[in-house]
């Protein structure tokens, strides 16, 4: 019986175009990530050419420096590079590798750390708040009990998030592939050694991790939607937490998934996250599990206790 109500929720997502809007929004953000990486390649290649010209004009030995090593020292004014030509060549190579079809999917999944809290948080918020907004919860809670409705809605999020993620990855990959062809015609890619870079974990592991991030924030969004019955307030809470508040340390959810992100992803491209603060595998796992369990218990408690006639 639950199956038909999950289908009902999915039909709502399709007919209300919510899934399409979320997928388009995520695709745009993915393409923006790819474009930023594309721009990074162009800009660093430009810097590489300028440095190469400087070496030529001043009669410096390019080959010798390219065979050496470089040091990057960061300071308040930005930083200093000890061997700029090698640094720029290495940076261009790294960004080219990130833009290449071999790594592109990984880069898209890396961006999940920054994009999914907002995108899937919004999905969760809308799933939770729409039936309160239109009072259609009165129709639904006649046909199924409130706890069933809570589970059905969360199952619909699990399925829809997966489909949205897969479709947006395919669309963005195709766009990224076209961008890479354009990049290949703008820059002599073969001059840069991208063979030295390797992904440290399997793409399926990265996909599962990104999907878990999507589910965590869809669940948080759903719970906030249940609490506030309003998607705007929930959206503000998510934006403040993810993009404004700093990493609060060991017991912060952000810190915990940063810990796993650092293990799963290589961050060769433009996407990067700060190093987690003093945490461990067990602490990070427990924090993530606690957030999911507490969110689930809280939203189920609210839906069971709240009247369908509250506005």
């Amino acid at each position, binding site marked *: 019986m639950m199956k038909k109500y999950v289908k*009902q929720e999915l039909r709502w997502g399709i*007919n209300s175009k919510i899934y399409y809007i979320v997928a388009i929004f995520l695709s745009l953000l993915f393409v923006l990530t790819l474009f930023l990486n594309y721009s990074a390649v162009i800009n660093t290649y430009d810097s590489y050419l300028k440095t190469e010209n400087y070496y030529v004009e001043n009669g410096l030995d390019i080959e010798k420096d390219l065979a050496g090593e470089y040091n990057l020292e960061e300071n308040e004014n930005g930083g200093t590079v000890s061997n700029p030509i090698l640094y720029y060549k290495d940076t261009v190579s790294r960004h080219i590798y990130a833009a290449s079809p071999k790594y592109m999917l990984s880069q898209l999944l890396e961006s999940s750390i920054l994009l999914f809290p907002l995108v899937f948080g919004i999905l969760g918020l809308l799933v939770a708040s729409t039936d309160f907004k239109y009072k259609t919860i*009165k*129709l639904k*809670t006649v046909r*199924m009990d409130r706890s069933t409705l809570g589970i059905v809605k969360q199952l619909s999020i699990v399925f829809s998030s997966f489909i949205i993620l897969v479709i947006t990855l395919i669309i963005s990959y195709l766009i990224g592939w076209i961008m890479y062809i354009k990049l290949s015609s703008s820059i002599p890619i073969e001059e840069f050694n991208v063979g030295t870079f390797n992904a440290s974990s399997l793409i399926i592991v990265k996909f599962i991790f990104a999907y878990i991030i999507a589910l965590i924030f869809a669940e948080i969004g759903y719970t906030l939607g249940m609490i506030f019955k309003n998607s705007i307030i929930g959206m503000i809470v998510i934006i403040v937490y993810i993009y404004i508040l700093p990493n609060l340390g060991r017991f912060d959810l952000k810190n915990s998934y940063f810990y796993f992100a650092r293990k799963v992803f290589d961050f060769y491209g433009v996407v990067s996250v700060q190093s987690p603060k003093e945490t461990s595998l067990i602490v990070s796992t427990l924090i993530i599990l606690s957030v999911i369990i507490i969110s689930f218990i809280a939203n189920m408690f609210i839906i069971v206790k709240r*009247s369908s006639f509250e506005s």
Partner: protein
Amino acid sequence: MIQCTNFSKSYSNKCIIEKSSFEIRENKISFLMGPNGSGKTTLIKCMMEMEKYNGDFIFEGKNISQIRDKCMVLWDDCPFYMNLNGIKNLIIFGENKKSKNEIKEIASNYLDYGLLRRKVKTYSYGQKKKLALVLVEILEPKYLIMDEISNGLDYEMIRILKKIIKSWSKDMTILLTGHQFSFYNDIVDDLFVFKNKQITLLKENFSDSGEKLEDVYDEEIC
């Protein structure tokens, strides 16, 4: 049949409905009469276990949780997704019981197809009621409760709806509430009234008796 035993309802220690026991007969049209605020909508909420109450409601020997998907309530405000058109709402709430073409066919008996393709927020109150009636035909519930169904409907629709409700009662157990007595006079089988905060069965086969609900109201409630 719906059996109600020792049903009572209070809000913060104030008793709204006192201990009442009654039976709503299967495949009959039952009408619940009472003034505003007497607890008609509260009874519906309690029957559907959407609010806490004391007592029991048994649907053919089963608890509400076992037969929920056989129940349907048409609320007075007819909630739908206002940002979607009528057809999409019917597809969503129709639970895949009918194909899209069947839904269109049923809906066209009540509403113009052009209107069905417009967002529900542009609908009048009566048009939303008609959309809700289409949903009844799609879901074909065993237990149908309609709160103030005649409100907002035009004369022609009211005339047709009487026949429709009569025909539905061959397969459905129907409970109606409302104040537009002229609409209900000819179709009510069993008449229930709120009297002294209690729900009691006043008359079986009411429409055959030739009595008028207006007169009963004057006698029993005023």
